């Protein structure tokens, strides 16, 4: 079984340090993903391991032999690379010619490819679903086809270690999964060690055994998928808020980005407070949108286990929570009213209303009565979601009578809120200026 050890590697382009003290090791049968933002040194690391860029300090060992002291051919027989994009070649070469180049490290100076080389090339091409392209010229291929040809060429080298630079970037979803499945199989059955650069966290999480997270040329985290793929790590390296959840169907970790942290939201904007009355998943999307738009968002009363409640928890939004399937208690209702009294606007989503959450509508009524702008989203007719024998319907029409504004969609509400926010913010400003 092969072992690849990267020991304290420092790499420079001219005088710019690209990798700093990078150390880790991979064994045969392991599928390792390399993650990191653009310019974090991922491709440089692959170049160092494939003997293209000699590190200034440290080195790479293949089964305890320093690859920089081995012959190029010897290294190429053990370590193969499928590059990110194959350069377009103007000189006409067929796909088969290109894949047979993978046999170069096995061939003598004046030798020609024999039947064995052809058989190996064919197997590699059949695995990557490129055999039917064999006699086409390589510059006639689509980028996805070319990418598969490059993987075939790497496999034709019969390597022990396979390095892949974004192996699926140009592929459609079908080909992505197919190629990844093939690679995983090679890894498990033939003991191939695979190190692949990914930009897609979910693909990496699904196929890799271990992950390496690089940032600014240094390893931030290395280990099992769940140790590396944490929202803290991703926020530190990519400056993006994400949720990391285990997917209920695939059982693998799933990374859901919220959005890049917006610095543009000014302090004034953050002063605008919106309270959302929702439930049954009708408010989750709105919460996220408003949160990203830079509003202060609160919500309540929500039942535990409700999708809206989960979203509020993920976003870290202040919520008044109630036990599942229980009517809202007087205590929580009061708490909700307290939050509402501080809000600049209230939104009532088109949630289903039963006796359990009827009190929420009463809370909205209280808000309208105290003059807080209130919006009712009515994308589903109330008749379809009223489970209180008309009580909810009555309350809703009373709300409207007292000045709540009925809107048809979330977009409309967002538009109105932005206008309201702009108005209030300028008022606050001018007031402060006068003073």
């Amino acid at each position, binding site marked *: 079984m092969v072992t690849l050890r990267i020991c304290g590697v420092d790499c420079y382009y001219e005088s710019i340090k690209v990798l700093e003290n990078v150390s880790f090791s991979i064994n045969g049968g392991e599928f390792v993903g390399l993650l990191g933002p653009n310019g974090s040194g991922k491709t440089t690391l692959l*170049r160092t391991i*494939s*003997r*293209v860029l*000699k590190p200034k300090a440290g080195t790479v060992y293949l089964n305890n032999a320093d690859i920089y002291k081995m*012959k*190029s*051919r*010897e*290294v*190429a*027989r053990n*370590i*193969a*690379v499928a*590059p990110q994009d*194959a*350069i377009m*070649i*103007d*000189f*006409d*070469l067929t796909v*088969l*010619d*290109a894949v047979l*180049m*993978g046999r*170069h*490290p096995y*061939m003598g*100076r*004046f030798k*020609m*490819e024999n*039947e064995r080389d*052809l058989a190996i090339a*064919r197997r590699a091409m059949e695995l990557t679903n490129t*055999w039917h392209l*064999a*006699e086409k010229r390589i510059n006639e291929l689509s980028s996805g086809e070319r990418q598969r040809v490059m993987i075939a060429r790497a496999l034709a*080298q019969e390597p022990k270690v396979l390095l892949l630079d974004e192996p699926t970037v140009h592929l459609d979803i079908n080909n992505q999964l197919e190629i990844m499945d093939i690679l995983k199989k090679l890894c498990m059955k033939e003991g191939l060690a695979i190190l692949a650069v990914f930009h897609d966290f979910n693909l990496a999480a699904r196929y890799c055994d271990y992950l390496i997270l690089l940032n600014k040329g240094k390893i931030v985290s290395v280990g099992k998928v769940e140790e590396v793929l944490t929202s803290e790590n991703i926020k530190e390296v990519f400056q993006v808020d994400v949720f990391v959840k285990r997917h209920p169907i695939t059982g693998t970790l799933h990374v859901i980005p919220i959005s890049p942290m917006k610095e543009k939201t000014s302090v004034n904007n953050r002063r605008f407070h919106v309270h959302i009355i929702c439930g049954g998943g009708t408010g989750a999307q709105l919460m996220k949108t408003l949160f990203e738009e830079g509003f202060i968002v609160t919500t309540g009363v929500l039942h535990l286990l409700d999708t809206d409640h989960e979203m509020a928890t993920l976003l870290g939004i202040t919520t008044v929570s109630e036990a599942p399937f229980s009517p809202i208690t007087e205590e929580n209702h009061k708490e909700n009213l307290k939050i509402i009294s501080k809000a600049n606007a209230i939104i009532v989503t088109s949630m289903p209303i039963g006796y359990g959450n009827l009190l929420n509508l009463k809370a909205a009524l209280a808000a309208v009565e105290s003059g807080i702008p209130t919006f009712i989203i009515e994308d589903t007719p109330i008749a379809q979601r009223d489970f209180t024998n008309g009580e909810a319907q009555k309350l809703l029409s009373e709300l409207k009578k007292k000045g709540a504004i009925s809107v048809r969609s979330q977009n409309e509400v967002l538009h109105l809120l932005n206008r309201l926010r702009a108005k209030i913010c300028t008022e606050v400003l001018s007031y402060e200026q006068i003073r």
Partner: protein
Amino acid sequence: MRSCQKSTTETRYLKRIAKWFSTIFILLFSSFTSIALSSMIGPMPISVDKCFGIILRRIPILGGLINCNWTPQEEIVITQLRLPRALSTVLVGVALSIAGVVFQGIFRNPMADPYVLGVASGAGFGASLAIVFGISLPSISLIYTIPIMASVCALLTVFLVYTIARTSYGIPILRLLLAGIAVSSFFSSAISILLVIAGEEAHAVFSWLFGGFPIVGWEFIYVTAPIILFCSVTVYAYSRDLNIMLLGEEQAQQLGVDVEIVKRNLIILASIMTAAAVSVSGIIGFVGLIVPHMMRLIVGSDHRILIPSSALAGATLLTLCDIVARIMLRPIILPTGMVTAMLGAPFFTYLLAKSGRLKLRGS
């Protein structure tokens, strides 16, 4: 269905070698024909049988079987004038074409030619110096001074370009190309200055710069043939590396090619070949640039066939051009370099139009 497809794709691939052999055979035949033609044609026409007779008679054992039906004068014309001239056109054609293939391959640039690293201007400068100032090396006659000066200056120029382009991490192709342009232009202006002050010698410099074979004797061939043949075979040993380097240097390294070493060796070999060619013929353009492209259109980009077929095609083309140069404006003998482009360009245009396959990078 599957097995049927297997047999076609794979056997077609393996059969390609047979096709290569027939290509080589045809080209070999045409270059021998052109040598024969070159020996026959001239102010004193000599028939085919006499030509072959004179040549074959020199071969031991076999020579005894041939009757002498030619005059001693004819024998001298063939052996001392035409044959060395024909063989030198072959040698120069081989050298320039292979050097062209090599430079186009490692530069991955279809505009590269054997003179891309400044060989032409360096050699031209050396030759001009020798002609204009009548420099003669001690104990060497003036006839040999010019080629020696030319080839030495050519190699020094390449060495200069190479040294300028070199960095701590290898020789980047772009730097090499730019250094070549810089040094070339410098020596070109130096040649122009020499031409201005040359006076009566300017004509001699001009005809040397255009390239031709005015005074080649066997001694030129004895010296350059081993060099050019050795370099050709060694370059051929790198033909698969050249194929792979078409993919780019990084990928070539990952496929087990020692890019920097291969590049260095090929640059040295191609430069030596070019310098050897220049010492025989002066600067002959077009052959080294266009013959590789012609052959790419005909045999494809695989250097294992491209190198030998370019060599033979270059030899044939240059020999034919030399015949034309000798007879076109009789009794004036034109510099051969003037004819190469005139004949080669229309032929190349024809191939280009016919195939529509050659794509010039970045143009």
